[in-house]
C-alpha cells in the first residue's frame, strides 16, 4: 500500500481531533470545574509526554538524564525555548562523546 494513503489517514484523523472541539464547542463554559480542568491541561500534558520519556530518548539513560537536568536548569534561568532545546541537545552530544572517548 502506498505510504500516501497512510499519510492521508493520519492527517485526516489528526485534523478532525483538533477541528471538532474548536468549531463545535464555541459557547463559553461556565462550569468552574471544567474551566479549572482546562487550565491545568497544557502543563500536565507536556509533563506526561516529557517525563520519564526523555530518559530513554537517547543511546543511554546517562545522557538522557543529563539532558533533563540541563534543560531544567536552563528553564529556571528563563532561557527561551530554542536555547533550552539547543542546550539539551548539546548536553547529550557532549555526554555521549565523553562516554565514548573516556
Amino acid at each position, binding site marked *: 500500500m502506498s505510504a500516501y494513503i497512510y499519510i492521508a489517514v493520519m492527517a485526516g484523523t489528526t485534523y478532525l481531533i483538533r477541528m471538532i472541539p474548536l468549531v463545535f464547542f464555541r459557547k463559553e463554559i461556565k462550569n468552574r470545574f471544567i474551566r479549572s480542568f482546562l487550565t491545568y491541561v*497544557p502543563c500536565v500534558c507536556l509533563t506526561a509526554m516529557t517525563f520519564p520519556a526523555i530518559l530513554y530518548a537517547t543511546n543511554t539513560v546517562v545522557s538522557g538524564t543529563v539532558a533533563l537536568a540541563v534543560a531544567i536548569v536552563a528553564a529556571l534561568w528563563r532561557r527561551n525555548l530554542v536555547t533550552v532545546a539547543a542546550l539539551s541537545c548539546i548536553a547529550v552530544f557532549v555526554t555521549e562523546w565523553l562516554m565514548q572517548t573516556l
Partner: protein
Amino acid sequence: MQRNEFTLGLRDSLPVGVGYFAVSFGFGVTAVRTISAIQATVMSLTNMTSAGQFAGVGVIAAASSLWVMLLTQLVINSRYALMSLALSQKLGRSFGVVQRLIVAFYNTDEIFALAMQRPVPLTTRYMYGLGVLPIVGWASGTLLGALAGDILPSMVSNALGVALYGMFIAIVVPQAVAETPKRVAVLLSAVLSCLFTWVPWLKTVDSGLAIVICTVVAAAVCALAFPIQDKEEASR
C-alpha cells in the same frame, strides 16, 4: 494595527519555528529509513504533530492496517482535543467557522501554549502570524533532515532527538515555579507518567493512551483541589 498583530504573531512564534526546524530535522533523519524524503515532508506538512508522526512512521514500517493507523493517531493525538477545547474558550467572537477551520490545522502543543499565555484577547491576524513560521520550520526541517539523514553521524541525529523535550521543559518549568497549584499538577503528572513507564502491568498500556490518562487524572485532581477563581471574583 491589524498588520502589527500578524507581525507580532510571527515574532512570538519565531523560537517555535526554529525549534520545530531542529526537531523535525531529527524526524526527517529517522523517517527516511521507512519512507521517502518527499513522503516525510508531505507527512509533516499535512500533520503538524510530533509524537503522532513518529508513531505513524512505525505503523507504516510494520505495514499494519489503516485501522491501526487511525486508532494510533486517535489515541496519541487525543490530547489535542483537550487543547482545542481550551483554545476554543479563549478565541473570541471574531473567530467564525472559517477562521476556526484554519487555526485547527496547526493547533500544536507549542502554538497552543503561546496562544494561551497571551494576556490580551486573541485576534485572527495574530493567530495566523503564529502559524506561518512553525509550519515552514516543521516542513523544511523534515525535508533537510531526510536529505541529510545518510551523511549525518548517528551521534548528532541522536542528540537532536531531545530537542522537543527541551522545548516542553522550557514551557513547563517557569509555570511550575510561579504557581503552587501548577507545581503540584506537574509533579502529580510526572509521578503518574512514571507509574505507566515502570510498574509491570501498567507499562503494557500504549504510551499515547498513558499520556491521555495522566493528563485527565492530574488535571481533574488539581481542578478539584485548586479550582481557579471566577472572573468576577478575580477582578474584585
